[in-house]
Structure formats: structure tokens, C-alpha cells
């Protein structure tokens, strides 16, 4: 399993738009389970509504994990996504 920690800098947090883009990116790695955890609550990155339910805000720290056949590529894609969008 690969993972990293990220502090959200976007003032709007993970709302519908970024959650949708996150889910879309995560679905490109069908053989790998990608999750986002905030304060003990975990949601699959591919599940848009679950991600939105985490209510991730600016300043929140999330842990992004990838486990599966493409975990190396997936975690890199997630790092890029969070750095560019969040």
C-alpha cells in the first residue's frame, strides 16, 4: 500500500466539482483501491457522494491511500491531482 498526507489549501475544500474530478481520475485505476481518509472516516475516491460526505475543508489533513496492482501509478496520479486542485 502507498499513501501520503495532504493539507487542503483550496478555500472551498472538496466540493462537487473537485470530488467529480477526483472520482474520474480514481476510476482510471480500476485494479487499485484508492481511498481518502479524514479524521478516521474513509471513502473510496471513486465514490463521488461518499467523498463529498467527508466534508473536507481548507486546512483539513487527509490521508490518500492506494492499494492494488497499479498503486504506484495511482498514488502518483493522486499526488498530482491534489497538488494541482486542492
Amino acid at each position: 500500500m502507498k499513501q501520503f498526507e495532504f493539507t487542503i489549501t483550496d478555500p472551498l475544500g472538496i466540493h462537487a466539482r473537485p470530488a467529480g474530478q477526483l472520482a474520474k481520475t480514481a476510476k482510471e485505476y480500476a485494479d487499485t483501491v484508492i481511498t481518502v481518509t479524514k479524521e478516521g472516516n474513509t471513502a473510496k475516491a471513486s465514490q463521488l457522494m461518499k467523498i463529498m460526505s467527508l466534508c473536507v475543508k481548507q486546512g483539513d489533513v487527509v490521508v490518500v491511500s492506494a492499494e492494488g496492482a497499479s498503486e504506484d501509478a495511482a498514488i502518483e496520479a493522486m499526488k498530482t491531482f491534489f497538488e494541482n486542485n486542492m
Partner: protein
Amino acid sequence: MGIFDFMKEKGSAETQETVAYPAVLGAVSKGRFVSMDQIPDEVFSGGVLGTCCGIEPDEGKVYAPISGKISQIADTLHAVGIEVAGMELLIHVGIDTVEMNGKGFKTMVKQGQNVKKGDLLLTMDLDMINKAGHSTTVVMAVTNSDEFSAVEGIADGPVNVGDDVLRVSK
């Protein structure tokens, strides 16, 4: 309407709503139907949030498109999730209205609450949204549309609350 309707009436608050597929979702507002490709935002029109449709509302009221459970309400009150029998819906009021930080929005429901089709979910101040420079288009997206064989817009032009607008097929 389906053969399981009698169970809904008798069921406790925990009872999951049942849906007969193909399921039809009603218009969330009175206004003009907007097909997915005409929604003025590429995140919606490109299907990033799932297959969707929009309504350009005449009134600042948003109603439940189907009976189900409120799965979430954004802190900014401009987006509501409804879950029903494997279908996940997102009702997103206006485009980029997250930036209004809840101003002009009022919600009538709570997370976890069961709602019936046609129940008032929230109100919005259309003038305030317009003045802030945002589109008031109310988007209804089936966020897990890739789990269905088809999600199709089936309306055109003016619609009343509850009119058939999206058909979801297994």
C-alpha cells in the same frame, strides 16, 4: 408507482425505498428543461459528476425528484444528495454557487431524513444568485450513472415540478 408501494406506507423509518427500473426522476423545480450538453459548465456537461440534466428555474424552490433518503447536505446548502435503492443522486443548485457560502439558500431537510417525491428540499434566492453572477440552473446528476445501462433525459422545454425528466435503466 409500483407493486411495492404498500410496503413503503407500512415501513419504518429504516426501511429502504424500493424502485422499479427503469426508474423515472421528476423535475426538481418548475422551469425549463436543460439537456446535459447544454448545461453551462463542462464538469456537468462532460458527465464528470455522472449523467445529469438541468432545470432553469422559474421559482427559487427545489423539490425531491424521487422518494429516498437524504444522504448529505453540503455545508454551503447548495447541494443535496439523495440515495434510493442503489441510485445516488446529487442535486446541485446553480453553477459555482459553492462560492456563495450558503447565502441565499435555506434547507428544509436533514441528513438521514426520508423524503417523498415532491417534498420541498430547499429554497434559493434567485435574484441573489443572479446578482452574484452565477447561473441558477439546478442540476440533477445520477452520480453512479456508470452502474446503469442508461440514464436519459426525456423532457424538453417547460416543465412543472415532478414532471418526468430523467429515465434510469438497469
